[in-house]
């Protein structure tokens, strides 16, 4: 890969050095602010803090899988299985507690362990057998959608399980009517994932290994970094995050739908890309991903506030904005390149 990477992006070492590497994430944040101000200017009640809080309620699951996806993409891979693993995790929670009668905390622990184990397995296959990540995780996409449908092809309700009411229990920050807002526990779980990921990615040996492997796997190997551990680790993290997102979805809806989260992996990839992470790996920030998920959520909120936009318009707007983001980042990156040379 090293020679190809060099010929493809000869300018990368200058492009992502110093301050210029913050340009893409800066653009994302600027657009997020612009979207928010545009919403405030055009719609009543858009300035209510609960609008922001709601972003982290509706998109808690997406945030968690996008954070897991950030690790994988930073290492130069991709994980297409997260949407299916997430649906499977929700369904497994429902089946274990409702049908098998296992206590809910144990069921959740089993599901999380399973997600991690799946990630370890697929990461090992990718690393040791050199199966392309796209294909190896495609297996997961099909396998877990199939297994979910085999457990149940209809909705399963978890309303009777006391434990799953915990997630939507909320903490109030002031009265909503007086400009306060509330957040459920599951949002705090998502925040915890973000904070832990931030620390792991930027302040641990493993995190630096992820960037190094994404930048150039052979260089990382020659430098004596534990490439195998890093590459398998990122898929384990992604698998754990997908399972956790499934548990969060179980908390949020208290039911399991076998066809839930179809295409969630694309939303996650889109959020990561909007957040300024290069799909080829080696450059990006986990906080950028948070911004990306917020943009995604903000767009949905704007379309909901507008009210008369149909679902197919939502999709077109999403596509156009994704395009705008990518071109904007590209232009900014190019001008930064010129300034330096």
């Amino acid at each position, binding site marked *: *890969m090293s*020679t*190809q990477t060099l*010929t*493809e992006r000869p300018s990368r070492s200058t492009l992502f050095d110093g301050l210029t590497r913050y340009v893409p994430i800066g653009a994302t944040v600027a657009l997020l602010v612009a979207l928010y101000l545009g919403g405030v200017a055009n719609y009543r009640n858009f300035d209510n803090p609960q609008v922001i809080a709601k972003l982290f309620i509706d998109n808690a699951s997406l945030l968690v899988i996008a954070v897991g996806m950030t690790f994988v993409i930073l290492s130069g891979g*991709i994980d297409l299985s997260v949407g299916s693993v997430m649906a499977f995790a929700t369904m497994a929670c429902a089946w274990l507690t409702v049908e098998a009668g296992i206590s809910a905390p144990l069921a959740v622990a089993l599901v999380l362990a399973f997600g991690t184990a799946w990630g370890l397995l697929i990461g090992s*296959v990718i690393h*040791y*057998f*050199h*199966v*392309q990540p*796209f*294909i*190896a995780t*495609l*297996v*997961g*996409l*099909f*396998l877990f*959608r*199939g*297994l979910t*449908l*085999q457990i149940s*092809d209809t909705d399963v309700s978890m309303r009777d399980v006391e434990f799953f009411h915990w997630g939507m229990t909320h903490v109030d920050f002031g009265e909503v009517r007086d400009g306060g807002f509330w957040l459920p526990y599951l949002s705090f779980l998502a925040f915890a994932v973000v904070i832990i990921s931030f620390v792991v990615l930027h302040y641990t040996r493993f995190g630096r290994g992820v960037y190094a492997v994404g930048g150039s*796997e*052979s260089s990382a190997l020659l430098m004596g970094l534990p490439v195998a551990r890093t590459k398998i680790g990122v898929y384990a993290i992604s698998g754990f995050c997908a399972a956790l997102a499934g548990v969060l979805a179980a908390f949020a809806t208290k039911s399991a739908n076998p066809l839930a989260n179809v295409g969630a992996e*694309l939303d996650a*990839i*889109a959020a990561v*890309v909007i957040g300024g992470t*290069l*799909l*080829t790996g080696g450059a990006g920030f986990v906080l950028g991903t948070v911004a990306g998920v917020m943009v995604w959520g903000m767009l949905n909120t704007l379309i909901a506030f507008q009210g008369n936009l*149909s*679902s*197919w*318009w*939502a*999709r*077109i707007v*999403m*596509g*156009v904005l*994704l*395009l705008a983001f*990518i*071109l904007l980042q*590209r232009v900014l990156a190019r001008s930064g390149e010129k300034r330096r040379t």
Partner: protein
Amino acid sequence: MTSASTPAKARGGANPYLKRLMWPLAVLVALIVVNIAVTGFDFIVPSVNDDRLGGAFVNILRRSAPLLLVSLGMTLVIATKGIDLSVGAVYAIGAAIACQMIIDAENQSAPGLIFAAVALALVVTGVIGAWNGTMVAYFGIQPIVATLILMIAGRGIAQLVTGGQIPKVQDSSPFTELGRGAILTVPVPIVIAALVLLLLALLTRRTALGMLLESVGGNPEASRLAGIRSKGITVLVYLVCGLCAGLAGLIGAANLGSADANNGGLWIELDAILAVVIGGTALLGGRFFLLGTTIGVVIIGTLEDTIINVGLSSQWQFTAKAIVVFVVALLQSPEFRAWILKPFKRKPETPAPAPAEEVLAK
């Protein structure tokens, strides 16, 4: 990476090529044997009803034709180290444009109208493909991202064309012949797919185009320095891929007599990538096997029937697909083959050409 094909030619035989095709062919034969064991020889032997070929296997081929078209385009894109995620959406757009234009007209059977509708759909899908290619070649955007945009927005555009409805073409319209008709007893979709396969194979293997494609996929910058217009070739390849997806959409819509913007060609991009990979084309680019892709498509089509034939519920569809992908992906991995065969081998294995390639590719 072009070295993958040059030694093959230098040694003057299709031997490495056949070796690449061996695993997919083995899987396909195994699937067919399972089917014959369960349903008898009727499965493979075509029958002639109402002046057209019938029988289980011919039906599989007929239903696989749209996937084959999409996969052929995808093979060329992947050969240039790209990927086109938007083919499913382009499929829906092509189908939507043609069907909407036909139902908007007064006489749905006018040959001129059908021709115009088909032409318009192909032009639009070709333009969409060229747009993808331009994004990749001239704006320097990663192929996954560039085509992700249309993957997300494309079905929205198709919804916009149909106004959120599902346009239904009259059964009497000649348009439906594209999916249901037969030429000399052979179903039209098979004929179209075979013609496209032949055309692309001739274009890429009898002219320099195939070699140029592989060199662009192997190293775009080196190709440019060698005097190849790599950007033009990239745009062309995505254009062809868009056209193939549009054509596939037309056949699919003609077969159903309607265009569903939401579900038409859903997940066809994943199936197509699957078929390409089963066929032995590496996602890393630099080499491609149109015939391998064809075998991959037939494997996927046969698999779907096999599940029903052996008496499993249709929910097994996904699971079975996953298992097949897993097995094929592992079998194609030289590291896996070496690992699994280790206990059976006494002397150290002489390095086959395939592992050497893989090492280079990494």
